[in-house]
């Protein structure tokens, strides 16, 4: 404990150099935190996806339209508890880059299947039955555009209404947010299917949905239920492709390619540079301090203790830098959320980060410490 002032004095000896080493460590660990956070978050999101929620979509058409009449037969499949459906289209609010995904559905069954979702106010769900053009809006979108409950919003979509315009107006009756990570995006605007469907022009787009969402009794039966649904509609005009939410999460999140390999290579390159840069700076620091080390040894500090002092100095810089860097890296993650979806960072990332920090500090400071250990008093005092 009594050596703390010595370590502190060594760090403060040349503040600019210490600050720069510190900054490099922070940046490297911010990168580590962000990259490792994304990959572990992705892996965790896949693990957390629900296996008891199945998605039924059209197998043939990319745009995936299925007739609304199919829902009744889906309900009769054994093992299926609840059935909801989603007719989705994309819209923008005021500016082309401000997107709002719209999901036209039956709000009651939708909220049952994705339960427990928090709807605020609680009366919003019944209000949807009264207000034909009502909408329950995800908290993500509410915050992004500063919308309030009761407000009427007009959104622009390439999906045309019967009168030929692409303007869709909704009255916000409530908000919703799902406490779980999995499930639909927090940006989704939920609208009444009947209202949207009746506004569509006559034609093939009417009375259809993009995919059905089923909740089944037992995740263990997912494979059987999938098989039953797909074989039931095989060779019909509406062949289906059924996937569990887990399958979908895996496909969606793995689409970025082999994330793990890329992240490991970048982190590897960063740490290599960090090791080299801090190692060289520590060496230089020891060279400048040679006479001081000689004084320490003259005063009776053992070789081992001098080595420990130098290592502790590096460790302090690394651990403090790693703590700040990891924290910053995690702060960066919401930027990635736009493209990858809602993910969170498991604590193992922090543990791994600190382990790396210790290893790098010992390796980077080790060479310098070794030199300090080997210095002979007479040489050191003469600065040879």
């Amino acid at each position, binding site marked *: 404990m009594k050596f703390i002032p010595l370590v502190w004095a060594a760090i403060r000896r040349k503040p*600019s*150099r210490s600050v*720069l*080493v510190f*900054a*490099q460590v922070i*940046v*490297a660990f*911010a*990168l580590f935190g*962000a990259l490792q956070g994304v990959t572990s978050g992705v892996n965790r999101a896949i693990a957390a996806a629900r296996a008891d929620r199945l998605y039924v979509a059209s*197998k*043939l*058409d*990319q*745009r995936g339209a299925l007739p609304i009449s199919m829902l009744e037969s889906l309900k009769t499949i054994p093992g299926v508890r609840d059935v909801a459906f989603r007719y989705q*289209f*994309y819209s923008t609010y005021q500016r082309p880059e401000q997107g709002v995904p719209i999901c036209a559905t039956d709000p009651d069954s939708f909220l049952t299947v994705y339960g427990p979702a928090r709807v605020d106010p609680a009366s919003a769900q019944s209000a949807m039955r009264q207000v034909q053009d009502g909408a329950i809006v995800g908290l993500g979108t509410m915050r992004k555009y500063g919308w309030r409950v009761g407000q009427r919003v007009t959104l622009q*979509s*390439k*999906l*045309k209404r019967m009168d030929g315009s692409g303007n869709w107006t909704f009255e916000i009756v409530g908000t919703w947010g799902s406490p779980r990570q999995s499930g639909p995006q927090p940006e989704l605007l939920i609208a009444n299917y009947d209202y949207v469907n009746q506004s569509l022009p006559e034609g*093939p787009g009417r009375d259809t949905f993009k995919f059905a969402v089923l909740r089944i009794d037992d995740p263990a039966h997912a494979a059987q239920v999938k098989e039953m649904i797909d074989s039931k509609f*095989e*060779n*019909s*005009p*509406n*062949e289906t492709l059924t996937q569990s939410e887990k399958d979908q999460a895996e496909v969606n999140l793995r*689409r*970025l*390619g082999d994330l793990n390999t890329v992240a490991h290579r*970048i982190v590897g*390159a*960063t740490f*290599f*540079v*960090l090791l*080299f*840069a801090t190692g*060289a*700076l520590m*060496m*230089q620091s020891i060279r400048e301090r040679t006479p001081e080390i000689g004084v320490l040894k003259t005063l009776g500090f053992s070789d081992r203790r001098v080595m420990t002092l130098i290592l502790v100095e590096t460790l302090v810089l690394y651990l403090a830098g790693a703590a700040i860097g990891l924290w910053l890296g995690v702060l*960066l993650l919401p*930027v990635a959320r736009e*493209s990858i979806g809602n993910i969170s960072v498991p604590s193992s990332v922090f543990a791994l980060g600190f382990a790396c920090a210790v290893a790098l500090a010992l390796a980077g400071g080790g060479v310098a410490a070794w030199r300090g250990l080997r210095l002979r008093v007479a040489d050191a005092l003469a600065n040879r």
Partner: protein
Amino acid sequence: MRALRRIWLLTVTAISSIPQRLGTSAVIVISITAVTGVLVAMLALGQGLRELARADVRADQAVVLSAEAESAVQSSLPKTILSSISDKPGIKRGSRGEPEIFGAAFMYMDVVSRESRRSPVSFYFVTPGFWDIDSGARIVEGRNVRPGLRELVVSDVIRRRFRRMNVGDQVRIRGTSWQIVGVFDSKSLQDWVIGDADTMLAAFPRSTFNTVNVIVESPAAFATFKQAVINDPTLAATVMTQAESNDAVLRPQRELFDFISYVLGGLMGLGAACGALACLYASVDARTREIGTLRAIGFGNVSVVISVLAEGMLLAIPAALLGAGIDWYLFNGHVVVAQEITFPMAVTGRLALISVLWSLGIALIGGILPSIRAGRLPIAVALKAS
């Protein structure tokens, strides 16, 4: 002129003493090499997509999509639309008066790769008109598909990546059997399997194309054709040039890759700038007496400042080129599958230029403070330095 000569002399002095400061100079070179290496490798993904969107694009090819579609992937057009579009003005006609037009429908299906992994393959079903226009695709082995028969031709990339995708093999698509009869070569369709659209639409309960493509008489006739299609309410369709359509399909992925590249490159660059800063400070410290002497014999402080900056930059440029060069050796043409698109990464001169600019930025940020310190060193103090 004399000022330039002085700066040059000082820079040469600084560079010639680099061997005595090998450690700190190597730190600058290695960290900039690593930063530009990562930056260029990531940018090579976006660049690969950019090259893919540009490959084999014809200025006179127009792509018809359904009105609300953002890109060909979301587009869906009834197959009867082919004949209604054929009548529109502006379409180029062949010697017998037939319009140069074809319908295309895509499908993605899982196929087992050589590593026994299931991965999606794009199937592109086209009407016979496709083979009459010059799309850049040509048969290099076997023969072309015949209309009405369940036959497929595969690209060379697909043949190499997947099992049982050689000429003579059978592919099962939704319970029906299709024969591979040939291999084609194309820059823009290199990860596709091509079949006959009429056969496919008859075989499966599907009745829509994704796009209808036409060759217009001249790039100027494009506007005529576009207006005619948009103004026809029965079509509910819109028109893009082939370049726009390719770009619409690939843009989201490209923007994502570029965004990630610059975030990573920026962060790593920040770290490298700190490293360069520390190293150039060390270099100025090591040369304190030398700088003092030079100042004493009459070199101005501006030339000293610029020579320190130049030292950093002269280290940075070869380092950036080294980073880009390593990437070029490792990754140029390396075929990757990301976001269900198969494409070769491209390390181009543009990326080398970006890496040089990036490294100069790093060297400049890292060099400013140390160079000012060198310029402001009092001569008397500097000469007394140990």
